[in-house]
C-alpha cells in the first residue's frame, strides 16, 4: 500500500481540509439557524457562544488552508505543461483531460469554475466568524444580521460543495500523481 507525495498533498487538500470543512458546515448552519429561528432557538449560554466562536474560527482556518494548498501546491501540478513530444500525459492532468472530448468538460467547466468559486467559501465564513465574535449573543437583537450570517454561511457551504464535487470528479478522471512514493504498509507475501 503506497501513495505518491503529490497524491498525499492532494488528499490533504481535498479530504483533510475541504471535506472536513464541508462536514463542519452542517454543524455551523444548525447552530446559526438555532440562533436565527425564534421557534427553535434556545438561550445560548456563554459556554455555547464561546464554543461556536472557536468552531467558526476553525472553519475559517480550514477553508483558507483548503484554497491556499489547492492554488499553490496542487494546482501547479495539475496545470503543468508537458515537454514537447510527450505521449503519456498521465503526469499532466489538465492536458490529459483536454486531450479527450469525453473528459475535456471536467477541465473547461469543472476546474475553471472550481478554481474561482472555491474562494467564496473562506471569504464568506471569515466574515461570519468575525460577525459572530464581534456580536455574540447580541446577534439575537439584530434580525437582518442574523439572517444574513446564516445566508453567507449557506453560500460558503455551496461554494465549498461545488469545489469539492468537481475536485473529487476531476481527481477521479485525471489524478494528480508523481513525486516520491511513500510506502504505507507492505502486504503479506504470496
Amino acid at each position, binding site marked *: 500500500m503506497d501513495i505518491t507525495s503529490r497524491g498525499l498533498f492532494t488528499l490533504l487538500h481535498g479530504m483533510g481540509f475541504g471535506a472536513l470543512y464541508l462536514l463542519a458546515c452542517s454543524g455551523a448552519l444548525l447552530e446559526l439557524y438555532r440562533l436565527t429561528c*425564534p*421557534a427553535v*432557538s*434556545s*438561550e*445560548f449560554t456563554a459556554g455555547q457562544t464561546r464554543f461556536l466562536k472557536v468552531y467558526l474560527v476553525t472553519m475559517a482556518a480550514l477553508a483558507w488552508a483548503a*484554497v491556499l494548498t489547492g*492554488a*499553490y501546491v496542487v*494546482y*501547479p501540478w495539475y*496545470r*503543468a505543461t508537458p515537454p514537447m513530444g510527450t505521449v503519456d500525459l498521465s503526469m499532466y492532468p489538465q492536458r490529459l483531460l483536454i486531450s479527450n472530448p469525453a473528459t475535456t468538460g471536467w477541465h*473547461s*467547466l469543472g476546474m*475553471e*469554475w472550481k*478554481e*474561482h*468559486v472555491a*474562494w*467564496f467559501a473562506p*471569504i*464568506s465564513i*471569515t*466574515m461570519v466568524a*468575525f*460577525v459572530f465574535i*464581534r*456580536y455574540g*449573543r*447580541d446577534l*439575537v*437583537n*439584530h*434580525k*437582518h*444580521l442574523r*439572517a*444574513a*450570517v446564516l*445566508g*453567507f454561511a449557506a*453560500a460558503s457551504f*455551496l*461554494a465549498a460543495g461545488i469545489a469539492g464535487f468537481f475536485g473529487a470528479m476531476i481527481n477521479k478522471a485525471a489524478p494528480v500523481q508523481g513525486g516520491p512514493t511513500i510506502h504505507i504498509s507492505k502486504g503479506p507475501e504470496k
Partner: protein
Amino acid sequence: MSPANPFASSKGPALTNGSAAAAMLSAGIGSFTLALLSLAADKVASIKSLLNFYKPTGPLSGVTTVAIVVWLLTWVLLEVVWTEKTVAAARIIVIAFVLLGLSFLLTFPPIGDLF
C-alpha cells in the same frame, strides 16, 4: 409577521449594526472583484499576463491576491466609517447578496463565456 425572538434583549441591541454591515458588504465586494478579475484575465491577454504573480499557479494567483487585497481594504475602510453607526442594514445586505450571487454566476464558465 414572524414572532419576536424570545431571547432578544428587552433593552435592545448593545452594538450598532455598522460593523457587521461593513463586513458583509466588503465580503460581497471582494467576491465580485474576484469574479470580475477572473473574467478579465480570461478575455484580455495583457490582464492575464499582468495577474500572473506566481508562474506555477498562473493568473489565478493575481486574481485571488488582488481580490483579497480589495476585500480587506474595503472592509477596513467601511469598518472605520460605520463601526459606531446604525446603517440601513437590510439594503446593504441585499447589495452584498446580489454581489455574491453575481460572483457565482460570472465564475460559471457557460455564463462567463457569454461576455
